[in-house]
């Protein structure tokens, strides 16, 4: 065994020890943590900084800290659950040509994401 193989094994073993996370419940309930996982999995965090979402430190779009208190979505829609779900699922229909692309998010996922964003005060 070469030194680099040994080093790789030691690193992997180290990773294993810290990589064990609990699997979240998969039923589409209204547990806000489900929304945080979806925000991370759909990659929202590569453009937005979102407190409590893994890896969400993007600076392409605005930060979503304090989102529950934000008055407007995209500077035009009142910030309410149904509007936010529409915006998450189909921003291009609300603001044609916006930098935020349409992503394949279904209704249950959009709801879970919005529920999480409304925990950010």
């Amino acid at each position, binding site marked *: 065994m070469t030194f680099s193989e040994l080093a790789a094994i*030691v*690193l*992997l*073993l*180290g*990773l*294993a*020890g*810290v*990589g*064990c*996370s*609990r*699997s*979240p419940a998969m039923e589409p309930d209204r547990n806000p943590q489900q929304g945080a*996982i979806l925000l*991370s*999995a*759909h*990659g929202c*965090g*590569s*453009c937005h*900084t979102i407190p409590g979402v*893994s*890896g969400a430190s*993007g*600076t*392409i*779009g*605005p*930060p979503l*800290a*304090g989102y529950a*208190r*934000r*008055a*407007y979505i*995209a*500077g*035009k829609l009142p910030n309410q659950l149904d509007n936010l779900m529409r915006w998450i699922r189909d921003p*291009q229909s609300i*603001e044609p*040509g*916006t*930098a*935020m*692309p*349409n*992503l*394949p998010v279904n209704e249950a996922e959009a709801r879970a994401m919005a529920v999480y964003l409304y925990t950010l005060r």
Partner: protein
Amino acid sequence: MSARLTGKPVLYVIAGALGAALLGAAAMGIFIASGRYDIAAMHPHTQPVRTILKFLQRRSIAFHARNLVAPRFDQPEVIQRGLALYREHCVSCHGAPGEGRQRVGVGLNPNPPPLEQAIERWSDAEIYWTTAFGLKMAGMPSFLLGRTPAEIWAIVAFVRQMNRLSPEEYRRMVSARANPSDTVRVQWIGKTRAEALARVPGDPARGKELLRTFGCRSCHLIPGVPGPGGNVGPPLTRWAERQFISGRLVNMPDALRTWILNPPAIDPHTAMPALGATVAQADDMVAYLYTLGARPRERQQKNRSR
């Protein structure tokens, strides 16, 4: 003294350390064999794993790209070639300004990052290396396979330009390429954010005061400008790092001045009103906002030293 150090107690310590290391390794082996490690792409990495993987990636790319020298690639035809290759190979996972990924790019872990700010984090050589050779365990393929180095550099040339592309300009580029007889005016090379933010006009100290007196703070949180409210529009934290203004303009001094002077002229339905500021006042506010966060050059240096 030295005789005592080479005596028995030292041997015990070494044996103990070896034993502990072996025990640890055995425990790790048992843990892996148990299958309890969560390998699901949908679930985020735990923070320590993320930190280690990102550090490994950064160091490895920097090391392997250290001797690459970029050829001259700031020519319109190179950028056009790069756009074609980008649309063929990259857009399906990384998207583009205003253009989403396709299904194949959704649900990957790590998430393929948008590349508008790639040049604010990586050198040209690092972007070339990553594109050419790909990244193990990251879903990033090697695009040099079946391609030439010149073609990979063309992709890098286009990715550089993405730093200054608004969704509108990107659409124009795409349509001009698809239909060369199109009369739309396309500027293939322009000043990037990284270049535009190297010199910002205006006086930040005066700008800070103006942001307060114009009441900007009642709708936006602005670090360094105290006041109540600030929840109507988005927070302006780390403003120098923000890519877009209102999702339409690329965040550069001229565009920001235009926006501050008359937002409805750019986005007719925006809730942000024109404030009646003079050009000089707008420039001062612009100057203060770009003191928030790290400008592109500082960002790249910060990345380097990490």
